């Protein structure tokens, strides 16, 4: 049989093409194989699994420079520090002390100097006793804890309505990132019992009153080695919370909290949507005053505000059922790996637009030493101390980018926008992991907005922090 010349050509082309395709696949295989890193010259030394599992110890040095501006409503003295230098030694460690017994310690010793603080004095050296408690597991899946414990709840990132033990717990933070604020805070002295089942859990906690309310602290009157139980245990407090698996991936958490004759309820719900999205909602509600009303009551109780302050504070209102909500979603991009959290925050007890108008109208033109701006600013200091939203509505966006631009560089940042007036707080931070032991980093904070706005009226317009960390 003799093939037509055209058929021969076609077959030849097909053969060449298939050979080229095989050569291409083979070349691709070679390329893939060439990307395999060479084996290490010496086998890695196995790390005992318990060596680093129950402790985190680091030494950090951080310097902060802040920019202050004269504002429409002058803040009462003392002015914020323009600079601060802080060296801190931070320890979190657990010890097994017996059958079913575990001891946990978490604390930080700070050596600090700052503009206006002076040196040397007893406030240069402070100790934050975050946690110190004993855990006992008498039965499988039954746990008792007693001591100072950081009890935290909530699925949101920027604002946690159900985090009932957050009030007054944050001491001189180095960052205003909400993720950092919930780590660097004081625990509460309490007794806690927890039972975990295969489809849920139940937790009960009681925090006794062992101290009484104290005035809001400033940077210049911290107590050196006092555990500051007045911040966390000024009143009897109760918490009951439980989770239950209702369906695949659906396990809501319900909470009830009681303190000073008031009961609040809360709920947390989070759900994965696909492989890159998590949605969540967090709610709490209960009878309480407005933010101004609660601040006035606290100020009077601690002798910080005169009775006459009621005449200048906006939005006093009356006690009623009020809600707080955080609803949002996280999204992780495929390439590069960036996780975004976008949230809406609501505090029914916070300032409305009319309250802000009144706040600025009352305070404009007053001099700093007069009692009027002092009372007005007290509400804002109270909100910060309680970690509560001053305004009613905020939008919050946070970003976390691992290996940003170059490997081992983690960039985090958030923007918090007050939806009442459009003012914003922006913080951008970067940590570069030089090695397992060393990290260097920094962050920039900028508050911006109009003169009659939430963030635009803060005395501090911005700050820069540089740090170096050594882990042990």
């Amino acid at each position: 049989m003799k093939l037509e010349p055209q058929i021969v050509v076609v077959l030849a082309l097909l053969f060449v093409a298939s050979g080229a395709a095989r050569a291409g696949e083979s070349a691709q295989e070679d390329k893939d194989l060439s990307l395999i890193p060479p084996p290490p010259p010496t086998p890695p030394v196995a790390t005992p699994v318990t060596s680093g599992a129950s402790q985190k110890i680091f030494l950090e040095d951080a310097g902060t420079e802040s920019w202050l501006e004269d504002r429409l409503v002058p803040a009462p003295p003392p002015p914020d520090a323009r600079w601060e230098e802080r060296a801190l030694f931070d320890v979190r460690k657990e010890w097994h002390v017996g059958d079913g017994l575990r001891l946990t310690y978490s604390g930080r010793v700070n050596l600090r100097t700052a503009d206006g603080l002076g040196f040397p004095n007893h406030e240069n050296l402070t100790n934050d006793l975050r946690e110190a408690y004993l855990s006992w597991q008498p039965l499988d899946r039954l746990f008792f804890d007693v001591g100072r414990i950081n009890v935290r709840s909530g699925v949101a990132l920027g604002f946690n309505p159900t985090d009932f033990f957050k009030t007054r717990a944050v001491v001189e933070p180095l960052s205003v990132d909400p993720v950092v604020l919930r780590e660097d805070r004081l625990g509460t002295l309490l007794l806690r019992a927890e039972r975990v089942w295969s489809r849920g859990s139940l937790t009960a906690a009681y925090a006794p009153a062992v101290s009484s309310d104290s005035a809001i602290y400033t940077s210049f009157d911290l107590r050196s080695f006092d555990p500051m139980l007045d911040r966390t245990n000024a009143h009897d407090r109760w918490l009951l919370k439980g989770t239950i698996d209702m369906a695949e991936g659906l396990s809501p958490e319900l909470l009830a909290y009681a303190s000073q004759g008031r009961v609040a309820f809360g709920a947390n719900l989070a759900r994965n949507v696909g492989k890159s999205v998590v949605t969540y909602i967090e709610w709490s509600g209960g009878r309480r005053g407005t933010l101004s009303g609660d601040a006035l009551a606290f100020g009077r109780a601690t002798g910080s505000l005169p009775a006459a302050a009621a005449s200048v504070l906006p939005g006093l209102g009356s006690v009623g059922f009020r809600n707080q909500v955080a609803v949002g979603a996280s999204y992780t991009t495929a390439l590069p790996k960036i996780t975004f959290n976008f949230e809406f925050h609501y505090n029914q007890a916070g300032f409305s637009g009319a309250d802000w108008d009144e706040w600025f109208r009352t305070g404009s033109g007053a001099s700093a030493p007069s009692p009027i701006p002092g009372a007005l600013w007290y509400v804002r200091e109270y909100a910060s101390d309680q970690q509560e939203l001053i305004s009613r509505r905020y939008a919050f966006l946070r970003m976390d980018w691992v290996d940003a631009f170059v490997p081992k560089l983690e960039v985090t940042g958030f923007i918090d926008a007050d939806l009442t007036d459009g003012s914003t707080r922006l913080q951008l931070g970067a940590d570069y992991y030089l090695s397992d032991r060393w990290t260097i980093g920094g962050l920039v904070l900028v508050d911006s907005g109009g003169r009659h706005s939430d963030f635009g009226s803060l005395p501090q317009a911005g700050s820069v922090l540089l740090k170096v960390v050594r882990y042990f």
Partner: protein
Amino acid sequence: MKYSQHSLAILPLALSLCLGGLAHAQTAQEIVAATDKVRNPGQPFRTTLRLTEYVGGQERDHDSLVVFSKEDPATGQFRNLVQYVEPARDAGKRVLLDGHSLWFYDPDSRVSVRISAQQRLIGQAAIGDILTVNLAADYAASVVGTETIEDATRQPRKCWHLELKASNDLATYNRVEYWVEQGSFYPIKGKFYSDSGRLLKIVYFRNFAQQLGAVRATEAIIIDAVDSSLATTATLGEYAYQEIPEAWFQRDYLPHLQVK
């Protein structure tokens, strides 16, 4: 779920067919199920996992983890508990994966938050990459053909070339190309693609060794297909069977997990 039940049911048959030299008679799904069995022990177990990150062939960083894995008979998928051991800045952090639920616990804040499977663990390894998973439960497989490819040590291996498509939203990747050695069912190589069809990662398996009653790959090399200078090796060790109570897979158990 349907896939997993089917896969588990045919597994003994698949293995017996393999031993009988009748591998050609198997479906793609049966092959994936059989290679899942090679990768994953059939009883609850714990292992250590060392993740080493390379940049330009040079070791850059490493993490050490302890992993507890247990198969959920209802779904055919593994549930995993992970605790970070190294580096020091991450020590004590924990991750729980149970079906649609993925929780991250940070001992600094004492709180567990939900995370997504896309979130990065270390280097090129997403959480969904390194945890124990049964691919047959999350992917629908088809056979592309039979090929002889070189494994990570450049030894020729006669493989099924499989195409895996995500069959539910638990799958970390939309599409996977998978090469499984005929006869042994050893996983040799994988290519993982994004939803848009972009090649994200190339994975080679190597260092096959006897662990918990079977020969298993004890190392995976994860190569970043976008930036080919980046690679991560995942080395498994210290395998041990361990009873894992159901309550361990509750998020509220995470703070109480004790790694000894």
